């Protein structure tokens, strides 16, 4: 499986670390909403198809990435920097996905 890092280009999956489900929304740290915390910790969509994920290019530029991966085919349809406001400042690889 290859993941196309927006900075480094296509790299082997061994260079990346899975950081978890990208659909979760973390409650505010002071939140006492137990349902929200429960959902954050335990609820997963577990789709058969496209899945939003967070990966880190730990064996490369070390950027955190938003990846859409198909859980049936492993096809990756999109890879972007997880930090949205960094996108404009980043120098994208020519031909790379942005």
């Amino acid at each position, binding site marked *: 499986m290859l993941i196309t890092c927006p900075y*480094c280009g296509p790299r082997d999956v061994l260079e990346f670390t899975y950081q978890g489900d990208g659909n979760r929304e973390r409650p505010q740290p002071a939140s006492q909403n137990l349902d929200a915390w429960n959902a954050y910790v335990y609820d997963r969509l577990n789709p058969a198809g496209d899945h939003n994920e967070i990966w880190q290019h730990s064996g*490369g530029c070390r950027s955190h990435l938003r990846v859409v991966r198909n859980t049936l085919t492993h096809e990756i349809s999109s890879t972007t920097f997880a930090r949205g406001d960094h996108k404009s*400042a980043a*120098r994208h*690889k020519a031909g790379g996905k942005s």
Partner: protein
Amino acid sequence: MVERQSPLEPVLQVGSHGNFEHGVDIILSETQPGSILQLAAWPGEEKKLISVIRTVTGLALPDGAGGGSTDGARSVFGFAPGKFTVVDEAEGLVSAFAGAVTPAIGTVTDLSHGRTAIRIAGPKAEWVLAKFFAIDFALPAFPVGAGRSTVHHDVFAQIQRTGADQFDVYVFRSFARSFWKALCHASEEVGYEVQ
């Protein structure tokens, strides 16, 4: 300055090794730069940092991810968004940057004692490195001056192409000796010389 001792000292054996009867296709050496720095720009400050690098080193960074350049004595390349490795043969580069990279622009980290720089050159340099790293070493994909961050097993490596058939590999000092030995083994089949 503290006198530095190379982690390669016990294993670096100058001379020709391996299958060199038909010629030496790889030249390995330790470049021992005096300064190895990591510069990082805060989001949005990257252009300012690039111009500081130009002012301090005289090196212009080409546009694009992993872009870099070298003049032989000094080298610079991007290895991550907004982050650059700057290398100088001479010691003391950190003090030149300390005043120029203001807290509003970004940070300067001195890695001079933390990294070991290994140069692999020769007609089979691409061939040997391709056994270690799953990246494209062909000249059109990896032009002279450009840098790449990658790993060999768990050894993080920054690689800059400093010539058509020459690469400088920066690895953690603590892994340098085993990486060097692996590089020697991988070069045996084509014949290598240690300088």
